[in-house]
């Protein structure tokens, strides 16, 4: 006799620990793959797409296998509808075509999978991105902060500033309280009145009348307004994206900036750009590269071309200043300037004084990552400098 067992009520998630092991492995791999992705994608791409595809290596299980492209294979296929012995059929171009893989069957365990790809949402990607950079928490927090807020109405609260008292809803509260508290007495009054009219005994009538007066006093004693009635308008601070920002990427392309330094610079710019696109709807990019002279270029040229020469920062900041006054001077733009250099400045003009020439004020630089920030009117200007050693 067979044993029939209903397993459906068994606890779920038998393979949870295996799945967690797998996910941890994937996470580790994503972290490893991250630098490559950042290098591959252009600045725009990293932040425009909703998702990031990360090819994950290290979760495939290699074995010794035949290369399907090689060798002579005799393959048996079903459903011959047109061939005779000795026919020759051109191979389909591209891909393996019908005869390529020669898998033993539809249920074959040998079916190969394409590379394993994980799709990350923007937030997940940024989490990995920040993790990987090992930013101090303070800087992360700064990156995630939004600096402008707008107050929006968000209902009523019981405590608040008298100037925000909402008369209408306070009155509604008071009315409700009065109706509910006085109701008891009013019912009692009604009952006493009917007793009074029905009563003939003068002593009883006297007693009833004093009772009625007492209850009437109680009714009047219910106050018109009490503290519990008061309602105040409530406002909530909603982060307000300032819609436009312009980001100046300034990079030193002097001879001492090798490919490695440029990669670091690119990651730095990418990080800032991603951050900006989270804050602003519209972010424009201006690329300026400089050695002893500064020049505005497009992204392609910015990262890929090589120049040689010494390093003077000042001309690029002057150029930045010029571009600001020409194109971004109407106060609608938040301006972010960041400069990446290996700090081989051999000019008299030190970078600090060079920044000053932009006409901004500076906060003292934060110790781990120099960031200058100033607010002039509605417009914020941030300047940062990355020193690659």
């Amino acid at each position, binding site marked *: 006799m*067979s*044993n*029939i*067992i*209903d*397993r*459906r009520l*068994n606890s779920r*998630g*038998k*393979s949870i*620990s*295996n*799945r*967690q*092991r*797998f*996910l*941890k*492995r994937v996470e580790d791999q994503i972290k490893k793959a991250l630098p490559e992705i950042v290098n591959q994608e252009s600045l725009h791409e990293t932040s425009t797409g909703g998702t990031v595809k990360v090819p994950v290596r290290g979760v495939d*299980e*290699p*074995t*010794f*296998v*035949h*290369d399907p*492209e*090689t*060798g*002579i*294979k*005799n*393959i*048996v*296929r*079903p*459903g*011959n*509808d047109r*061939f005779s*012995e*000795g*026919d*020759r*059929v*051109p*191979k389909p171009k591209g891909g393996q075509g*019908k*005869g*390529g893989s*020669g898998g*033993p*069957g*539809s*249920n*074959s*365990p*040998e079916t190969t*999978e394409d590379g394993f790809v994980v799709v990350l949402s923007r937030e997940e990607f940024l989490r990995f991105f920040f993790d990987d950079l090992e930013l101090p928490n303070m800087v992360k927090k700064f990156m995630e902060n939004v600096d402008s807020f707008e107050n929006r109405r968000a209902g009523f609260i019981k405590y608040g500033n008298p100037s925000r008292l909402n008369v209408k809803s306070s009155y509604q509260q008071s009315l409700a309280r009065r109706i509910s508290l006085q109701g008891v007495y009013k019912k009692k009054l009604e009952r006493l009145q009917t007793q009074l009219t029905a009563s003939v005994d003068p002593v009883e009538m006297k007693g009833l009348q004093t009772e009625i007066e007492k209850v009437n006093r109680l009714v009047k004693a219910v106050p018109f307004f009490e503290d519990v009635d008061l309602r105040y308008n409530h406002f909530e601070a909603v982060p307000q994206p300032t819609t436009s920002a312009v980001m100046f990427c300034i990079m030193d392309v002097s001879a001492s900036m090798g490919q490695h330094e440029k990669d670091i610079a690119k990651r730095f710019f990418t990080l800032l750009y991603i951050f900006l696109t989270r804050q602003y709807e519209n972010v424009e990019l201006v690329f300026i590269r400089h050695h002893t002279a500064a020049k505005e270029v497009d992204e392609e040229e910015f990262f890929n071309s090589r120049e040689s020469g010494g390093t003077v920062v000042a001309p690029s900041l002057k150029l930045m200043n010029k571009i600001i006054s020409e194109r971004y001077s109407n106060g609608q733009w938040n301006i972010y300037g960041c400069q990446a250099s290996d700090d081989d400045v051999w000019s008299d003009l030190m970078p600090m004084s060079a920044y000053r020439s932009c006409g901004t004020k500076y906060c003292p630089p934060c110790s781990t990552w120099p960031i200058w920030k100033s607010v002039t009117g509605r417009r914020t200007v941030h300047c940062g400098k990355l020193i690659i050693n």
Partner: protein
Amino acid sequence: MLSKEMYKQLFGNPTWDHHTLQAADEITTRVGKEHLNLSIYPNQIEIVTSEQMLDAYSLIGLPTSYPHWKFGKDFVLNQHNYTKGRSALSYEMVINSNPCISYNMENNTTCMMVLVMAHACQGHNAFFANNYMFKEWTSADSILDYMAFAREYILACEEEYGVEEVERVLDAAHALMNHGIDKYRKPAKLSAREEKERQKLRTSVRHENYNELWRTLPQAGVSSNSKPLPGKNFLEEPEENILYFLEKNSPTLPVWKREIIRIVRKVAQYFYPQGLTKVMNEGFASFVHYHIVNKMYEEGYVDDGFMLEFIHSHSSVLYQPDYSSKHFSGLNPYTLGFNIFMDIKRICQSPTEEDRYWFPNLAGRDWLEEVHNAMQNFRDDSFILQYLSPKVIRDMKLFVVIDEEDEDEYEIAAIHNERGYRKVREALSEQYRRTFYVPEIQVEKVDLHTTNTLHLTHQIVSDRKLIPKETQETLEHLRYLWEFPVRLSSKNRLGVNEEIFECS
């Protein structure tokens, strides 16, 4: 026992309960035994949800296994495909154990349940219990115990040596799993208890024999000449079971890693017959469910509606798209196996002239006996070579394509005609041989004098090379277990090295 009408009513209701399943089990077992003469392991039928089925998928049906991320990966992939509607889950899954455990999906209709029970609990079960590959290469009685033991052992290792290190060993052993099989020497039967005792013994012998004093004894009597030269002695013949070789001969591998290799090796051995009997196993199970359900219909246990649903499911399982169809993804093992078994029956019952010429030993014999004989004593390649008849080749319109690497065209080598039958049969049989998809790689020698380099040889068959990148990665795993340089040379028929992979 109920009346036939009661059965009919039970099976006619598309929703089932415990009674329905009991009735189905009772009838299919009886029909299988009386009509098809099946001998089976006792059945353990488990009703599972889709999530539990996915669990079963990732552990290839085993109720328990040691923890490893690979199983989690399989779960995630299957679940993704399932929830996206890309692939359906199978109606059942069955494993080769005693008692024979089968998982049936909860959302099967009554008809599917009956079909599945006839297919898995009778068909597959009888195949596991009687086919020589399963009988002699696996031990159905003890696999469940053994897996529990393996899990316990590996968890203990994780506790002691850390998850990462254990994972590393498992990764490496898994990479060589296909090369951890005894094909000729029949493996000893598994036993969790013996396995534990063997382990204990191994450590205690080492403990007992360790004595600080012995080390200090002068080695006077032993001259360097009298020492056997290990390079010659210790590998007299090439070894194709790489995992076995590593377990026994890896120079400095700690004992616990050897034990893990052993576990992986035993699991690989357990699954070895599955891959070699896919066509036969599915074919025979389909043959069995087809006969049992038809018999039930003849005897009046099920009604016409049930049969219509059955025929629909049966034919979708056996659907074989043509090579040019967009649904085509290789030969359907169910179809091929079922067709061959049905044809054995036909040849026995009503042989034609052709059959008498091709199968003189089958024509006119008792069909059930012949089907049993085929089921018990063959595996896919030999089964096809022995029983693929011209009629099946014609019905399925099989043809052989030659795909040569350097040619721009395929050549049609044979089709379903008088001249082609044998060629088709041979080519198809070849396709189901293990060497078709597992390269022949052997441990050739070890250079014990200087570098401890392990030399492996890949025998190139019909010019098929290894994928370089994957080979290199696998070699790194091998390197990890050997702990010294490894070197794999691909040799062609003339013994000339065509490619050399190295990992030092």
